[in-house]
């Protein structure tokens, strides 16, 4: 089982920056595994491995109370994260 590491992101972070942080962390640590929140921050948990994902994960907020995942992506985690200061239900997905 790979080692994991949770990275917290400040709640005021925008959606664009949140996804940019995911790109950076996946480039250094490894693939994003789960999203969530803890202690008033967004909590992103990564698998720490030498193998980096070919395509980066992306977080998308729910729309109309339902998960919204870009076409061609596969969702792998759903929870509430902070987007621009608001706790928002969202999905984490990765392009196929």
């Amino acid at each position, binding site marked *: *089982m790979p080692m994991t590491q949770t990275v*917290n*992101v*400040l709640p005021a*972070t925008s959606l664009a920056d949140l996804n940019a942080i995911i790109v*950076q962390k996946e480039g*250094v640590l490894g693939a994003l595994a789960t999203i969530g929140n*803890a202690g008033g921050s967004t909590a992103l948990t990564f698998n720490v491995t*030498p193998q980096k994902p070919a395509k980066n994960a992306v977080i998308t907020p729910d729309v109309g109370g339902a998960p919204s995942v870009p076409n061609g992506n596969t969702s792998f985690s759903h929870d509430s994260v902070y987007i621009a200061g608001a706790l928002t239900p969202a999905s984490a997905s990765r392009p196929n």
Partner: protein
Amino acid sequence: MRVRRFSISSSTRRAKAGDLRKLAPVLALTLFAVSGCASFNGMQHPITADDLDKDKIVCPTAQQLKDYSDPALTGVQKRDFRDGVVTQCVIAINAKYIEFKTALRTDAITSNLATDVLGLGLTGAAAVTKHATSKQFTQGALAVVGIGADIDKDVFFNQTLPAIEASMDANRDTLLSNIVNAEKNDPTGANYTLAQAALDLIGYQDAGDIDIAIASLTKTASDAAAKAATALNAAQTKPYTAILLPPDIYAREKAVTDKVWAMVDPADQPKLTRFATALGLTPPAGESFQNLQGDVVVAIDSAVSAPGANAAQIMSSVESAYQVSTQ
């Protein structure tokens, strides 16, 4: 999920007798392996009568010092006499130094490196100079310092010995430059006397010493490690907060971490362990290579991407520590 058991080493830890592991090295930079019957001579032999004229025991000799103090010897002649003696001594010391380096390599080659293993984990210059075996390595069944690396000839010859030689060379160059500059700054021989030069020549000769070389290397590595360790997040087992990094900083971070991930077990185990230690991590016994890679990468990322951190400065420290640890 695996629980990591890393702790940040403290520079305030002090060694306890009889337990090399408790030296808690800031950077276990230097490893020596010797056999039970062979030993290294850790410093060059001093020049003797055989190296100069038969009636000379040291350089400069007592007679040369006496001649130099002759009131009749003044000005340019006094300077020339001094410079001539100094040059003669430097040549003799250099010859001995070359012999010493050759013998050092030869002794190591003829040693049975696989038999008794001596590991020196060095916290700083003080630890080096107080460690008797660092000058004259003796037989013993001392366990290798706690990095879990097997000592082999490649490690010693390709990394350690050249680094020690380079350190000795650098120390000698510095001291010789000081001597030459002192000569230049005193064209009449009135201020930089032959007696003063003699003291400097002793220092120059003593610079051909493994102790001093290791002390210099360790200090350099320790300085780099201290900068990095100060910046790194001490809480490696808990989540850390990260912000979006500027592109240039991220590129530097990725460059270093990619190198860490590209390391291969077991060939790069010593380098990885040294780097981890330089970053302030204390790898537990039995730590897998990949988990150690991960811990190093996490340590770097947690430090560089922390809100309010001086990311550029931290990356410079990390890069420096990497360079020192993997040279």
